[in-house]
C-alpha cells in the first residue's frame, strides 16, 4: 500500500515536471503545445549524446556528471523550445486555433521522426545509471535515486513557482495570462515573455527527459508521445494554466494510475488515464484548482 503511494508519487513528479510546461504555455497564449512531450524525448536524447560524448564516467562521479548534463540539456531543450516557438507558433499568433493545433501536431511529428532519423529508430540504453542504496520507509522500498530525482524535481518546481510569484517577468506572465491585449497596452513586451515561457517550460521537460533516461535506462524516439498526453492530463486535472495545479495534477494522476493498474491490470493503464482526462474535461474543465473562467462573448 505505502509502496503504491510512493510509486504514484514518484511517477507523478515526472508528470508534474512536464505538465508545468504545458500549463505555462497554455496559460499564457492559450496554445496547446502538442509537441511538448517530444521536448521531453529530445532532452533524453541530448543527455544521451552528451554523456556518450563524455566517454566512460567512473561511478563515483556519475551523479555529478549527470547534474552537469542535466543543466546542459535544460539549456539546449529550452533553446529548442524557443526556436520552435519562433518558427512555428509565432507566425500563427492570432490564427484560428485549428491552424495552431495542426502546426503543433506537425512540430511533434518533425521532432519524433527527426530524432529517429538522426539517432536511429532503435531504443538506446542510457550510458549513466543512477544506482544507489535502498531503504525501507513504512513498508515501502525507497531507493536513493528516486529520492534524488524527486528532490531535483521539487527543487525545480519551487524555483519556478517563486520565479513566477516574485519576479517582474513572473508578474508579466500572469498579467498576459489574464489579458494579452491589456498587457500590451501596459507596455509589457509580450513576445519576450512568451519566449521566456517557452524556454522555461521546455527546459523543465528536458530535465524530466534526462532524469527518466538516467533512472529507467532506456530511451526511444516515441517515448514522449504517451507521457506528453499524460502530462497534459495532469495539467487539466490540476487546472490548466495553473502552476500549482500542474504539480497537484501530476501527483493525482500518478496515484490514479497506480491504483487503477492495481485494480484493472497494466494493459488498461492508458485507458485509465485518458478516461480521467475526458471526465475532467467534460465535467470540470477548469480542473481542481482552476478558478472559473468568465465566459467570453
Amino acid at each position, binding site marked *: 500500500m505505502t509502496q503504491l503511494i510512493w510509486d504514484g508519487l514518484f511517477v507523478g513528479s515526472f508528470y508534474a515536471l512536464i505538465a508545468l510546461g504545458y500549463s505555462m504555455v497554455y496559460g499564457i497564449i492559450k496554445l496547446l503545445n502538442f509537441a511538448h512531450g517530444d521536448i521531453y524525448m529530445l532532452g533524453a536524447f541530448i543527455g544521451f549524446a552528451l554523456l556518450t560524448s563524455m566517454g566512460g564516467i567512473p561511478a563515483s562521479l556519475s551523479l555529478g556528471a549527470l547534474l552537469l548534463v542535466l543543466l546542459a540539456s535544460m539549456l539546449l531543450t529550452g533553446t529548442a523550445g524557443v526556436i520552435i516557438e519562433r518558427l512555428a507558433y509565432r507566425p500563427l499568433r492570432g*490564427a484560428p486555433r485549428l491552424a495552431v493545433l495542426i502546426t503543433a*501536431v506537425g512540430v511533434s511529428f518533425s521532432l519524433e521522426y527527426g530524432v529517429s532519423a538522426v539517432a536511429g529508430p532503435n531504443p538506446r540504453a542510457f550510458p549513466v545509471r543512477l544506482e544507489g542504496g535502498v531503504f525501507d520507509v513504512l513498508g515501502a522500498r525507497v531507493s536513493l535515486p528516486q529520492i534524488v530525482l524527486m528532490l531535483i524535481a521539487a527543487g525545480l518546481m519551487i524555483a519556478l513557482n517563486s520565479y513566477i510569484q516574485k519576479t517582474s517577468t513572473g508578474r508579466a506572465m500572469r498579467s498576459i495570462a489574464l489579458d494579452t491585449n491589456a498587457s500590451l497596452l501596459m507596455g509589457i513586451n509580450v513576445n519576450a515573455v512568451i519566449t521566456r515561457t517557452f524556454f522555461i517550460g521546455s527546459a523543465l521537460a528536458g530535465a524530466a527527459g534526462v532524469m527518466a533516461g538516467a533512472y529507467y535506462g532506456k530511451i526511444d524516439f516515441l517515448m514522449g508521445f504517451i507521457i506528453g498526453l499524460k502530462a497534459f492530463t495532469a495539467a487539466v486535472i490540476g487546472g490548466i494554466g495553473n502552476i500549482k495545479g500542474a504539480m497537484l495534477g501530476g501527483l493525482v494522476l500518478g496515484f490514479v494510475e497506480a491504483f487503477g493498474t492495481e485494480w484493472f491490470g497494466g494493459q488498461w493503464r492508458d485507458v485509465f488515464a485518458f478516461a480521467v482526462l475526458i471526465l475532467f474535461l467534460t465535467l470540470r474543465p477548469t480542473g481542481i484548482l482552476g478558478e472559473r473562467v468568465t465566459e467570453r462573448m
Partner: protein
Amino acid sequence: MSENVDSTQAPRKIGPPLSRISRLFESKQLGWVALGGALLAPFVTATPYSLNVMTTAAIFVLLASGLNIVVGYCGLLDLGYIAFMAVGAYTAGILSKSFDLPLIFTIPAVLVMTILAGLIIGAPTLRLRSDYLAIVTLGFGEITRITANNLTITGGPSGIFGIPGLLTIGRFDVQQPAVLYYVTVLVVALFVLASARLGKSRLGRAWRFVREDEDAAEAMGIHTYKVKLLAYIFGAIWGGCGGVLFAAHLSAVSPQSFIFLQSALVLMAVVLGGMGNMRGVVIGALVISLLPELLRDLAAQRYLAFGLLLVIVMVFRPQGFWPARGYERDRGSDGADEAAVARGESR
C-alpha cells in the same frame, strides 16, 4: 482572447481564380475525369500489388473525405478519427466471421455502431473548446485501440483474420482483387460525391458558419451543438464504411492498424489538400497514400517530411495547397465578381 476575433485576423488571402488552369480545376467535369482515370488505371497495370495499393489509396480517400466533413467543413479538429474506421472494421469483421455472412450484410449493423460511436464521442465533448476537443478525440482513439487489443471478442492483439469476402454470387466473387478494386472505387466515388454535395447544402453552409463564428451562427438561429453533432455523425459513417472496405480488402483486422499515426495521416491528407475543398482533399489523400509506395526507400523518412510539411503549410498557406474556392457565380456573368475582387483588394 476570443476565438472569433482571432479567426477574422487569420493570415489568409484567397486570391481570385484568374488563371485558366485554376478555372479548369474548378470545372464540373473534373470529378468525372478523376473517376475515369481511376476506372481505367487497372488497364494500365493490374498486378496484385498495384491493385492492392490502389485499393488502399481509394479507401484512404474515403477516410479523408469523411474527416473533411468534421475538420474541413465544421472546423472541429479530430485527432482520433481512425477510431471510427476501427469500429466499422471490427463490427463488420466480428459479425461476418461469427455468422459467416458476406461483409455486405453487416453494413446496417456497422452504420448503427458507428453512429453510436459518433454520438458517444461527440455528445459529451462537442461543447468543449476546439483544442480540448482535439485531445479528447485523441484519447478516445487510443481508448478504442487499446480496448480492441485487450478484449477477446475483438481477437485481442492478433485481431480477426480470415474474414469472409464482401459478397459472392454463384461463381462471381467480389473478392477478386480487380473486382474489389472497382467496387471500392465506385463506393468511394459515391461517398466523395455525397460529402461534396453535403458541403454545398444548407447543412454544409451551417457547418461553415459554425466554423467561422459560432456566436454569429447561433444568433442566426443555428443550433451550433446539433450541427456539430451532425458533422460528427456523418464523419463517423464515412469512417465506418471505410472500415468495412478495409476489412474486405485485408480480410483481417488488427489493432496495429488503428494507431494514432493513422489518424494523423488522414488529418495530413485533409490539411495539405485544402480543408473544406473536396477536390483538394482527394488529391491530398492520393498523394499521402501513394507517395510512400512510389518511393519506398524514403518510407522511413516520410513522417518527418509530412510533419515539416504540415508546419510549413500552416505557416505559409494555412488554407492548404488547393483551398476551397471562396467564390461563387454572381447573378451576372462571373466576370463581374473578379473585377469587383480587384476593387475589393485594391482597398
